């Protein structure tokens, strides 16, 4: 399942996509993220029959991703995003 967390408002679209088929809930991205945007949960909130751990965007960060992720996205000299780089399964993508 592709879970798109975030929002689109007057200024643009800001979504973090997590592919639950690829995520194994290892939590490497949780450690890598300096803004504590991500968290590991025991079961997929959007699939009551899936019991394996999974990464989601924390509920209290979902409506702020533009600002929380901002420091990792400078306009010039942008390094690879720590969350995306830390994932061995390529389960995380950003839309902006």
């Amino acid at each position, binding site marked *: *399942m*592709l*879970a*798109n967390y*975030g*929002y*689109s*408002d*007057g200024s643009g*679209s800001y*979504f973090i996509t997590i592919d639950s088929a690829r995520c194994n809930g290892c939590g490497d991205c949780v450690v890598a993220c300096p803004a504590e945007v991500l968290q590991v949960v025991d079961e997929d*909130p*959007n*699939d*009551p*029959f899936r019991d394996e751990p999974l990464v989601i965007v924390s509920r209290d960060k*979902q*409506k702020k991703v533009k600002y929380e992720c901002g420091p990792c996205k400078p306009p010039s000299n942008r390094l690879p995003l720590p969350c995306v780089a830390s994932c061995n399964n390529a389960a995380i993508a950003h*839309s902006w």
Partner: protein
Amino acid sequence: MEKSEDIQVREERQREFWRWEETNWVNPDISWKDAKFLTSGIDVGSVSSQAVVMADGVIYCYSNMRTGSDSPTSAEDALNFALAKTDLSAGRINYCIGTGYGRVNVPMADRSVTEIACHARGANFIYGPHVRTVLDVGGQDIKAIRCDEKGKVTNFLMNDKCAAGTGRGMEVFADLLQVPIGDVGDRSFRIDKEPVPVSSTCVVYAKSEATGLLRKGWQTNEVLAAYCSAMADRVYSLLVRVGIEPEFAVTGGMAKNKGVVDRLMKKINLEPAKTKWDTQIAGAVGAALFGFALCQKGKGR
């Protein structure tokens, strides 16, 4: 004295153009007494609440009403309203699942499931297994969901940061333009020429823009058309992100507003799936079905 109060109440109702009818329904063809598992799904949304009771996976009764000021009371009211015309007591229900915005505050729920999962499952039930794309326009959010033939979610997004282009926005507009909410769709097509959409679906901006348009001499119907059209644009932009695959189904209150739905369908060139059920109960139906599935696995009461 009593009569004059009655008239007062009626006049009050007439002035509330956003007010839609609360309904409950009982399936005349089945009896709950024959069922092995009775499950209920309670969807407490930001604007409306629904309760659905299923007997072995068949809808037995449901209710659809406005959410009150607190979730636990709204959930109880919805369930009581659903059971009002039946002789079934709430204690007889084997499993209850809460969903929607207020799902963690449903006192009688055995567990909660997110509205994303419930809407996909519910749309699969009320529109049939061919549905692949579900759009739910709720009271304060928009959900675009892709699902498989079992109603399992494959891709979704939910925009709940901003209530632009949602049901509550339409209610505010109905009130502003003094058009009963149920007539908005029809009246938005009683125009000579399709107007330019309002530039923002943000309720606050759109409201002041609409006031300006009325002052410029626009007809009420034209302003409605401009707003419905802007709303269709916004919904479309969210749908594109998850992709649109037929069949396409719309759930939630906005499915009843053809002013938005017809304009949206023109953009995506598809026919919306049809159903005999109330489109607002999709989430609660999905919850009741999850409850039924859990009971079959032996997890019921």
